């Protein structure tokens, strides 16, 4: 069980402050309200210096005496009180679905529920995160467990010492909450971190003991990496000063995964500070790899309309304006095809382990 540490006490104070503000307004006979930073595209900007997507300063007052806001106002306070009472006080964590169930009940004297669907509570949780400036993990909420990790390093997880060099074929399952009070790094021999998009390639690299030979940490996020994986990467880069390399499919989705790891996402811009890794490097697949590594043409897949539109959008993003990135994306569009990590196996089952990655890292052939 997690101990109610300093962090939890700080979070509890933030929630209390929120309510204090509301009570104060009521006493002054003012329409009580909660200021909620706006999470829309309009309030998001890319900071080219920090190389991060960050949330701006715009806020909206969610007041009680407003027909269109009353219900949401009530829900925000309800969730705040449940987090404090049920989670922070007991030191337990739970899922957002669980929190929805915990706070759902009938509003007295009506046949209306406080929440009708989880769709209603999820955005209010995000509102609460930004309103009190506390990450979801600080509110003791976890997302689904996804991803695994092995490598030249030992960690301590809730007091258990785990040697990531001796995790067999399975690896350590990365939890959703990886804050320093729960997870600590020990005996680090790794020189870099390699984040792989797909678990099949991770398994190949683990089987080939790539991390042993190249002294690295090897982790995957089963597609778009979940919060735990991103936060862990960010912590390793910041606390251990390790470079992070991202190894994804050559398609717009792969570019997007890389960009979220690197500068954060638009709709979760408020997490960038803790999640984003501006120094992350893209080691492929690149749209130039097919020629460079002489892959046969029948391993390519035609771009569909959605791919093409998505790629064209990416071309306009501020964080993809560097010449190499423009060349990379334009080359994909010109060729009209995408390429999966599995395509490398066409050369040899261990081609990625033995040739592709060593060459990319040695020749510093990454995109930044």
């Amino acid at each position, binding site marked *: 069980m997690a101990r109610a540490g300093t962090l939890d006490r700080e979070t509890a104070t933030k929630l209390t402050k929120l*309510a204090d503000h509301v*009570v104060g307004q*009521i006493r002054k006979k003012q*329409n009580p309200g909660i200021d909620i930073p706006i999470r829309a595209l309009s309030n998001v900007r890319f900071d080219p210096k920090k190389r991060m997507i960050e949330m701006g300063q715009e806020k909206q007052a969610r007041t009680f*005496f407003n*027909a269109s806001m009353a219900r949401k*106002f*009530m829900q925000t*306070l*309800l969730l705040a009180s449940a987090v404090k009472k049920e989670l922070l006080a007991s030191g337990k964590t739970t899922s957002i679905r669980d929190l929805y169930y915990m706070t759902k009940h009938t509003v007295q004297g009506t046949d209306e529920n406080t929440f009708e669907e989880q769709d209603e509570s999820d955005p209010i949780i995000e509102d609460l995160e930004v309103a009190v400036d506390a990450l979801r993990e600080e509110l003791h909420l976890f997302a689904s467990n996804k991803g695994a990790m092995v490598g030249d390093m030992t960690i301590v997880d809730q007091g258990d010492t785990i040697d990531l060099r001796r995790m067999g074929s399975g690896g350590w399952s990365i939890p959703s909450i990886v804050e320093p009070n729960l997870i600590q790094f020990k005996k680090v021999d790794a020189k870099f971190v390699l984040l792989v998009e797909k678990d099949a390639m991770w398994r190949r690299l683990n089987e080939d003991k790539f991390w042993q030979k190249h002294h690295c940490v090897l982790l995957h996020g089963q597609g778009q990496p979940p919060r735990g994986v991103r936060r862990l990467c960010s912590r390793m880069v910041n606390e251990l000063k390790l470079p992070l390399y991202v190894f994804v499919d050559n398609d717009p989705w792969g570019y997007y995964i890389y960009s979220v790891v690197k500068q954060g996402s638009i709709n979760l811009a408020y997490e960038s500070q803790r999640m984003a890794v501006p120094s992350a490097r893209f080691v492929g697949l690149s749209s130039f790899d097919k020629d460079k590594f002489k892959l046969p043409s029948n391993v390519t897949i035609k771009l569909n309309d959605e791919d093409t539109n998505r790629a064209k959008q990416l071309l306009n993003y501020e964080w993809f304006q560097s010449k190499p990135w423009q060349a990379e994306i334009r080359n994909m569009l010109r060729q009209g095809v995408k390429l999966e990590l599995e395509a490398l196996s066409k050369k040899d089952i261990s081609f990625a382990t033995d040739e592709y990655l060593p060459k990319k890292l040695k020749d510093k052939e990454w995109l930044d």
Partner: protein
Amino acid sequence: MMGSAMPKRKPPTQLTLVHAEELAKKQREISVSEFFAKNRHLLGFDNPRKALLTCVKEAVDNSLDACEEARILPEVRVTLRLLPGTEDRYVVAVEDNGPGIVREQIPRVFGKLLYGSKFHRLRMSRGQQGIGIAAAGMYSLLTTGKPMKIWSRTGEKKPAHYVELQIETSTNEPNLIRKEEVAWEKVHGTKVEIEIVGKYQKGRLSVDEYLEQTAIANPHATFVYVNPEGDKREFRRAVEEFPREPKEIKPHPYGVELGVFMKMLQDTKARTLSGFLQSDFSRVSSSVAAEICRVAAVSADMKPSKVAAGDAEKVHKAIPTVKIMNPPTDVLSPIGEANLLKGLHQQVQAEFYTAVTRPPSVYRGNPFAVEVALAYGVKDWPPDDLVRVLRFANRVPLLYQAGSCAITEAILDTKWKNYGVSQSKGALPAAPMAIALHFASVWVPFTSESKEAVAHYDAIIKEMKLAIQEAGRRVYAYVRRRQRDARQLERRSLFERYIEEVADACALLTKVDRQDLMKRLQAMAEQATKLHEREAAKEEKNDNGDEVLKGTTTLVVPENAQPAQLELKPAAQKA
């Protein structure tokens, strides 16, 4: 030039010569009865079911027309009887309390096509062409060989006449089989009995539906209907006043075609062009006639029959450039907004009713008026069902050929989405709604002699759409008002509902007193609701919903009203 363009071929001259003369021998005149006997589907006798309906319709139309001309409130009895031992032989009997028909006229009225009082004048009536009832007799003759039976009496001191007759199709003349004076308990009125091959079936396109709709459009008439199963239904009159009497009218100059105009010049009794324009047209004063002649640069004093073709054309061209009043309103006899609304309310249970009678307009020289009654929020409406359309022309319901009718087109063409009603492309709107549209004119342009659909004249469709749009705006205003009412109700309880939850959460987070907080919040909620009512009032001012309904013939049915409790006083009436 044709010779060079076409391949040369020796024509078989001799053969041709003979043939032209042979052909000539075969040429013959065709009687109009022969024509319609062969083409009887043109008159609505396509099949046994429709034939039964058409017989009833023609007889009822005649009864109502006769009663109205004589200013008698009509009482019409319709009886359908299946001949015992048969499956398809019906006797149709229609009896009225009208003025009766004088003995000498009976044979020609019932036994001759294209004979009647209504064709040669411009006056709003149900029958128009002098075909209807005689055609029913002809159909009877064709399918059963039986004569028509007619009883008629014109007054207390007159005897009642009984006549049996058949139409002689090769000459289009009546063939009298029997005539006698009989005892009849009716003081005045007419009864006709026709035996035909028919088919009776309830539901859509049935005699039942026809009579229900006839009752809507004729709220001053009482109908008694006995169906072949012996069930009797009575449609009692809802209004005790006569409709305004329609008047005969001269053609209006707008829309008269050149050829017709030239013929009228030849046929007129007027001695000058100016006099002709004044006497043979409606709404032409001497100054209007003078202005027409001035624009045409033709002398107003010319003898009409001497006006040369070129001059006639100039005058004809001048007419549309001169402002001429619309035909007088009082020639037509619209049902009227209040009466049409009452009629619809009796047949259709709904939340909201409204009716619009447009001022008269003109097509091809004929005045006409369009009326629309609309019922919205019809009870027990199957979801996604299309709107129900009731079509009327001169108070007669139109059941067949909805697809080719101008009324349908006008409803289809209206952009219902503007009125908050959903509509797929090219389809009728989908809503719990019934629309009754009445087209009244001194001459209804039907698409066929069976009088089932109004022809597509731009001027007509435009008026129909204007009426429909007005009704549509009112529906929208009503729907908006209803939504607003619902919103207001909700706002009032909204804050109170959540006060306890908010107080609980705050108490848990801050340790303040829960009861104190609730008291404060309740006080504020009362304030806030008042504030919001003010805001809502402002909002409503911008929304002109109520403005739209003000002064219109509109009826809103309270949600839990029992039909019997309803007093049928439309909210407000137009002058």
